């Protein structure tokens, strides 16, 4: 007998799913609680999108069981689908006006009241002027605007579960930033359960209560560790490198493959106020502290440092934080060994 906790929204048990024997998603057990925000990290083709389609009830896994709100979803009426909405990695806008796109979901639910007012409000959530955009046709929008309209058409539904498959990929920074704000606001306002995948780890660390790593169709770890995605290139001897935005390099030992994900334990990172030399660690990188919070580890403080486009969390003792006079905005040096990176 499977026990389903009252707080759990999804309970996924032993699901297996594949396409033409080429790819197989295998998840023995996964619980997603009501109202939480869960992030998924993994390289392209790792199985995130497949898992999301299953969680959105668009695909039925070949094997296994999914409980939603404590009930086995198979054989349930289609109405539960109204509780969940998914934004595809490459959203599709209907060949209609922006207004018609936004109110489509409401109309499908038989809701006809205050459509204009609600559509205008949803447009404002994503930073689009209703007066300028509501009557525009689908082909009169830029990529970022189309993405924001697609998000608005989901947010207006105030779903119990909002599944977002890389909502900020391939769009301009302004659109990405407005989408992130809208998602955070809607979650705080309606206690929506968020399931998100993103390559923007800085944002994901902020928005997600828990991060899971998915690799080759399997959940291989949780995101308390720092995640550094490939590609990795061979440098010299046994060393491999990942090049950061400004050309700085992260050194690692030989990865499983060039696209492997590296995990870095926050406790294996050393912080210094001045650049260190004559030490054995290969990675000595300059960054800025973006935030500080209580770490899950006893009496430790989680210090997030942004380094040339990636964000690393380091767990430091209160004493170390005090001694180094660490504060958000301060420039620091982050030091770790190449061998500290573990491969997924």
């Amino acid at each position: 007998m499977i026990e389903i906790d009252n707080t759990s929204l999804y309970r996924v048990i032993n699901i297996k799913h594949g396409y033409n024997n080429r790819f197989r998603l295998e998840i023995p057990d996964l619980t997603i609680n009501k109202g939480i925000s869960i992030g998924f990290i993994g390289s392209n083709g790792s199985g995130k999108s497949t898992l999301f389609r299953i969680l959105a009830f668009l695909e039925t896994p070949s094997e296994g069981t999914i409980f939603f709100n404590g009930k086995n979803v198979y054989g349930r009426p289609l109405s539960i689908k109204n509780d969940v909405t998914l934004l595809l990695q490459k959203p599709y806008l209907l060949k209609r006006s922006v207004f018609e796109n936004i109110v489509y979901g409401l109309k499908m639910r038989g809701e006809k009241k205050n459509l204009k007012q609600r559509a205008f409000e949803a447009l404002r959530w994503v930073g689009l002027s209703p007066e300028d955009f509501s009557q525009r046709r689908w082909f009169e929008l830029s990529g970022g605007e189309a993405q924001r309209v697609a998000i608005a058409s989901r947010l207006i539904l105030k779903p119990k579960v909002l599944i977002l498959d890389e909502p900020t990929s391939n769009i301009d920074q302004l659109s990405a930033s407005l989408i992130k704000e809208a998602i955070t606001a809607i979650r705080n306002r309606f206690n929506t359960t968020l399931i998100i995948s993103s390559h923007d780890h800085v944002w994901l660390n902020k928005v997600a209560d828990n991060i899971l790593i998915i690799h080759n169709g399997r959940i291989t770890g949780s995101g308390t560790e720092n995640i550094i995605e490939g590609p990795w290139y061979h440098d010299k001897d046994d060393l491999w490198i990942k090049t950061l935005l400004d050309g700085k390099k992260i050194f690692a030992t030989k990865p499983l493959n060039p696209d492997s994900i590296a995990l870095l334990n926050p406790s294996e990172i050393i912080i210094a106020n001045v650049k260190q030399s004559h030490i054995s660690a290969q990675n000595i990188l300059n960054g800025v502290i973006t935030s500080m919070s209580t770490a899950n580890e006893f009496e430790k403080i989680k210090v997030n440092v942004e380094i040339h486009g990636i964000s690393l969390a380091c767990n430091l003792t209160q004493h170390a934080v005090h001694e180094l006079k660490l504060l958000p905005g301060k420039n620091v040096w982050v030091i770790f060994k190449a061998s500290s990176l573990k491969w997924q």
Partner: protein
Amino acid sequence: MEYLIDGFIRAAQLLLRGNEEAYSTIWTTLKVSSLSIIFSLLLGLPSGFMLSYLNFPGKKQIRAVVDTLLALPTVVVGIFIYGFISKRGPLGEFNLLFTISGIVAAQTILILPIVISLTASAIEGLDNRLMLTLITLGAKGKQLVFSIIYEARYAIFTAAVTAYGRAISEVGISMMIGGNIKWHTRTITTAIALESGKGDFAMGIALGIILLSIALFVNCSLIMLRRKA
């Protein structure tokens, strides 16, 4: 060359002077082709949708047959339908021969493959993210079907215009099934055939110009409608 110019003048005279016979022919043409397109859309849209959307055994073979029927000669349809609805035929009791209903039935059969095939192609050509998007926004059952057809509306308009063009311009069916009866089943195309046969080329050209004008008007109306949609 002279009879071409004469044809233009006669066409203007027929229309401007309100020639009753010419208007009866125009009205019959519009009636049969409009009814045929309505019936073919009613039958062809759901059939085309199912042919593209559903998976069933023999689907490819059916598609091949439908595509082959795009080149169906009008006289072949005419002779088959004639065989069915003539007095000795299995549907003889319905007295459809030499009636508007008979022409409509035969024209519907003629243009149905066009509507089915082009609708199926239109649905198949839709972005494969459409279905997922509609479902994630809450569309189900009929809502899903109508939304998909609505997304393919431009291509379906094209199917309708193509089918209408085929119906309004065919002569074989109207002649064999309708019998070219004055004031009753005479269409513009059968009238052109008759007048040309009599040696009145100018009248034939005049009717031809009227037919082209109707086709142009219908196409322009559909283009306007498409823009509005």
